[in-house]
């Protein structure tokens, strides 16, 4: 703490915005290749139909919807950290919220692609939007998919706005540190923010307001996403536990993704190590521990209810998940989500960077598997035994999934280079003002 000063924060954070080096370009090349794979596969799918993905007759949703829920879920941690933790004044928020929020925006941008990718006739996607048209066609507000359209769009616009509002003072810092065209550009982005008391007062009020608007979305969006499933009649989907279960799962995966992104960021930019403290990472780990327990509880209660309800369809499905032919995905999920976070209860492990990174990756995999299990196994084994099916992956969906990671990473890499990845102003706020430090320490 002692060596962190206003100036060092400026230097360290803006250091990350220096012109990209070879590593950045090499990474970007890989990322763009991934994105290109996704675009190619999507183009192929548009031209030839949906059969390049493993979805089939009983299993109408597969990897695409899994990806959708996965990416929406990832987004949640960012909003949770930036909005909810802001309202509750959690101290560990400051260092990590900017990157987390960026993650949210990009994750939701990724997620929003999947409903489009997954529909059979994407060229007609705008029919999902209620707009006046000469054909007098309207949308069906009873359909949870339509609720999704609104939930995701609302979430995306609010998180982008909240993100940009948070950036205003930091853009001003970048403006002040730069020259020429760059100065002009950041000046526009900073909306002429000069840091007067008057401005700060209004700014803080606005920020608080946005945090309050964003907070309910943390809970509503994933609840609505869960209704895509819970509102249906399919065993394994039709359950009241889904909204809290999904929200907990979303925060679980989101926190893991924050770790997955910030731990390398911290390693790449040495200056960040002093700012993003191990203590903050540990707080994330604790969030993972907590939500991991909720998720594990949800898994077990699903099995209990299947047994306790006596509903044969439900029972058969919950036999199928651990013992059917898709059991690999189930056990992978259980291992990653229930077992792998357990070591975090030991302080030594949750403060160990490689261990933390590894576990965060496992949790990400596990949460993808959770969505895959919910989406696919339920459809594979529902009411009519004649119609039961199975899932095999196909190249198009795999490539599109790779492409989605490319898309997300591309935005994140650009973000690191053009925006302050940590919240400059708020970090300074947390510091003891320079002239007083000697006294108090």
């Amino acid at each position: 703490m002692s060596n962190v000063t206003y100036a060092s924060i400026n230097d360290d954070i803006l250091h990350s915005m220096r012109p990209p080096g070879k590593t950045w370009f090499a990474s970007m090349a890989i990322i763009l290749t991934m994105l290109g794979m996704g675009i190619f596969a999507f183009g192929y799918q548009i031209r030839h139909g949906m059969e390049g993905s493993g979805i089939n007759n009983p299993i109408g949703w597969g990897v695409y919807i899994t990806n959708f829920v996965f990416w929406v879920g990832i987004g949640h941690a960012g909003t949770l950290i930036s909005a909810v933790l802001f309202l509750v004044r959690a101290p560990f928020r400051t260092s990590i919220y900017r990157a987390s929020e960026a993650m949210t925006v990009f994750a939701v941008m990724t997620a929003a692609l999947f409903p489009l990718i997954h529909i059979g006739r994407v060229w007609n996607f705008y029919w999902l939007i209620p707009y006046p048209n000469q054909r007098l066609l309207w949308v069906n507000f009873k359909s949870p998919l339509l609720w999704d359209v609104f939930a995701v769009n609302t979430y995306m616009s609010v998180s982008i706005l909240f993100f940009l509002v948070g950036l205003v003072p930091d853009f001003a810092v970048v403006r002040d540190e730069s020259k020429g065209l760059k100065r002009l550009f950041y000046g526009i982005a900073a909306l002429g923010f000069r840091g007067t008391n008057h401005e700060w007062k209004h700014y803080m009020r606005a920020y608080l307001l946005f945090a309050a608007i964003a907070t309910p979305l943390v809970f509503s969006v994933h609840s609505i996403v869960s209704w895509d499933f819970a509102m249906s009649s399919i065993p394994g989907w039709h359950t009241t536990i889904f909204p809290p279960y999904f929200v907990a799962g979303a925060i679980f995966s989101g926190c893991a993704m924050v770790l997955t992104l910030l731990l390398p960021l911290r390693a790449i930019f040495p200056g960040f190590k002093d700012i993003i403290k191990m203590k903050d990472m540990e707080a994330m780990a604790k969030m993972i521990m907590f939500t991991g327990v909720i998720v594990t509880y949800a898994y077990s209660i699903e099995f209990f209810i299947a047994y306790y309800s006596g509903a044969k369809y439900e029972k058969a499905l919950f036999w199928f998940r651990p013992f059917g032919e898709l059991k690999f995905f189930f056990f992978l999920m259980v291992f990653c989500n229930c077992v792998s976070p357990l070591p975090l209860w030991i302080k030594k492990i949750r403060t160990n960077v490689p261990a933390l990174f590894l576990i965060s990756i496992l949790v990400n995999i596990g949460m993808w598997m959770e969505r895959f299990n919910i989406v696919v196994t339920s459809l594979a084994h529902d009411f009519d035994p004649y119609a039961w099916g199975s899932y095999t992956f196909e190249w198009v969906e795999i490539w599109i999934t790779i492409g989605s990671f490319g898309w997300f990473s591309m935005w994140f890499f650009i973000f690191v280079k053009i925006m302050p990845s940590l919240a400059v102003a708020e970090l300074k706020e947390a510091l003891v003002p320079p002239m007083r430090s000697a006294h108090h320490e």
Partner: protein
Amino acid sequence: MTKGINRRDFFKVAAVSGAAAAVAGCGSDPVETIIPMLVPPSEYQPGVVFNFASTCTECSGGCGLVIKTREGRAIKAEGNPLHPLNRGSICPQGQSSMQAMYSPSRSKGPNQQGAPVKWDEGIAALATAMKGGKTLYIGKPRSGSFKKLLAGVLGTDGSSLQFEMSPYASIAKGNEIAFGTAEVPQYAIGEAKVLVSFGADFMESWMNSQANLRDYTKMHAFSHGQKGKFIHVSTHQSMTGSNADQWLSVKPGQEAQVALGMAAALLPGSAMAGNEGLKSYLSGFSLEKVSERTGVSVKVLEELAKDFAQGGASLAIAGGNAQSTGEGAKLQVAVNLLNVVAGNLGKTVLFGAETQMGGDSLSKMADAIKQMAAGAYQVVVIENVNPAYALPKGAGFAEALAKVPMVVSLSTEEDETSALAHMHLPTSHTVESWGDLNPRKGIHSLIQPAMAKLPGYETLELGDLLLALGKQLGAAEASAATYQDYIKAAWMGYQKDWAVAGPFEAFWKKSLQQGGHFGEFAPKSVSLQSSAYAAEMAPKAEAAGLTLLAVNSSMHDANGAGGNRSWLLEIPHPVTQLVWDSWLEVHPDTAVELGLKHGNFAEVKTAAGTQKLGVFVNYGIARGVVAVPTGLGRNIPFPTYISTRGKSLLMPHVEMAADVTIKPLQVGLSAAQLLDFKLDPLSGDLVFTTAVEVKATDEDAYMVTPEGTAKHHDIAALSLEYTKANMGDRSLKGRGFVKMTSVEAMQGHSEEHDLEHHLRHRHYETTLPDNTSFYQERAADVAYHVEWSKRDKPVYYESHKWEMAVDLDRCIGCSACVVACYAENNVSVVGKERMSKGREMAWIHIARYQEPNHETGELETYFTPQMCGQCANAGCEPVCPVYATYHNDEGINAMIYNRCVGTRYCANNCAYKQRRFNWRTYEFPAPLHMQLNPAVTVREKGVMEKCNFCFSRVRAGKDLAKDQGREVFDGEILTACQETCPTDAISFGNIKDSKAKVTQIKTTTNRGYTQLDEVNYLPAVTYLKKINHDNKKA
């Protein structure tokens, strides 16, 4: 002219038949236009269906057809309701004749080894060759006027042979021995209370399956508190046996023993008891001895004999596999004895019909092959039969044919035999031709062209070709200008023979409208001859070792005509549910013994060769027997969609537009390649069995079925019956898709509405709609729930609410409804790989479940047709974000293809999984696309589709009623599946009409249920429980 569009009034379109026929007679038109008739006949109306009565020539059964045409193109083959044999239904193969008509394998025009020739040159060449020596004509079995013309054209130097693989020669021979008349009798199945079939798959390939099924339904369907009993005795159950009330599995080739044992048991009480010769003959077949030989217990045999004693109201028939063991004639003799002893002769077994079914005995073919090999023939003409494919290699057909100087094929399609011909003069398909058939005395069916010749195909009608040929040869018989004239002239003679009053034109028109001239026949009496119980008639007592059976089914038979039709390959085989493949059916115990595993390849070695076949483990076959389906192994031109099977998923597999070419694809393998050319010494029928060695392999056979149960185990339901040899769980898993009850339980419920419904061409009084809710008795319940849940009001239907009832006691699983649906609704055929991935498009399917028999512990088969239930409280409708599926005011879950964006949520939320998604745009290889029904949209990639109760037909029916200013008659609108059902299992109608049959069935039945009631989707399809005779079945 509006009346002409009503299919039930089709006989009123006489003038149309004549006019269209005149157009058809103009010869082939190479120009393809949107509407093929440039100057249409005056009655022609675009967008309106015209029906032409005709006759099916797929087998020799002679079922009446109605060819439905739109814009001058035939689009569907339906059964002729006025025809006394099939009475409106038609089998899968008969319906698939449309795919033969528009077959991608059709020959484009006359050619000499690929080089096109002109028609007159080709005929002249053939005539010249025929003048040079003896001619052999090998053709389809064709009764009627054609025979005479052919004989006249061939003259004294020519001979003809009617080729069919199962020509019922054993039945004829057995009757010759037993009764002194080599006739295939009429079996009055409908009059019997107990039917015992010795291997005769009468629901599939034995005789006229449609006529059989009509009669069987009469006898077997629950009606007035009663139900006949059907017992199947065979080594291979087949679909027919799986519908039996009791299936006796006997050791291979031992069916005759059971028949004789029953006869022996019944003899003491019968009219024949005094016949000493018979008595001493039958003494060798005491139940104990028979039991020892067949493996059936004495008690079961005793009960069987007791059941059979019905005082003349029972019937035993023989055929199918039991008759293809080399002792077919002996089996027929044994069955004849049984029928005589039981007093059935003259009651359920009728002679005198002069049935012309099946072709010539294969011994005649064997002779012909010898003669060909010896160089006796100058010319061999082969017409629409495929002996090069169908006959076992051992027959030496191809080798013998190679010795013939001039081989001419007259086949419509290019096939294995036409490939061996020097010249191919393709004849037109039946749908484009004139003709007549006489399947038995009293039934004279007409064939009339329903459309002009297929554009771009230079073909000639078979009759016209023969006439042209005859003229060149100077045959007196060939003086008629066209074959139409020839038939007309013949019928002019018939009019006198049948003493039909009135002018000929009126008689002719009426016959064309009705599809022929129909009457009864006078049975002639026959009596048992002593040769029937001569010692040499005794069947062999020892069962053979491991035996291979080549089996016919409703989908494919040994002639192989359907082996290149995509509908018949894509629609799952009823018993095995397998698609696009051959298989080896094995009993679980045999499989365990031989180490075979369900789904793996087995090496099958017979004297004729070694083949690899996928193992299908099933209880419907005797131990010590393996069965292979016939009729497969042919090439079908099919689109080569890209395959990702077994390829890396990380690499792209890109299908270019040019990649989707139509290439010949071999499907399965021909069972004939495993058989010897061995004939029944008495009758000359081919022996469809052979000794076999089977060796297990570990290789996956890639057998594909649309059912989920073969691969996926439900732990909760696993039991021994399903685990043997890895066969998988095929049970209902307690989910009640098929429900059963017993005759006992139904006692006292004889008031149940008699289901003789179907309502073809009947006009019933209709009550005008009442304004009550369709929910009827459920209304109160619904009102309560509506109030409680605060949800929208239930939909109240104005005047129509279409509902369906499916009687599972009648459904036999034949899948004719599925074919009808494919034809009517332009359902895409997707191929094996796409089927394996769960991308089948069938709107209706026959789900086959197997449940254990409480007594034997073996599995019994149950069938249920599954289609969209048009649920009143559907799961699919509220989840669609764009209202692409919605509930229309007639109770249909309508699909608006144009509006669909393809979220597939509706399919996910359908508890019955009846929705089908277009995973790609599927190809209809030319000219199959011309079969597409213009009344139904062809769907593109990314769109959801499903059954809509043939709403295009509902629309057409309502429009007609509107034009005529009346209500829709009950039974006026038939769904495609209902229309073709040979057992009338499906009823359809307006539930708001209290007099409608479907309403009456639903309100009076006490065995109705809806599937998955607990999900509360309120489907409009009510199923009626299957009625078992006793509780031996599950």
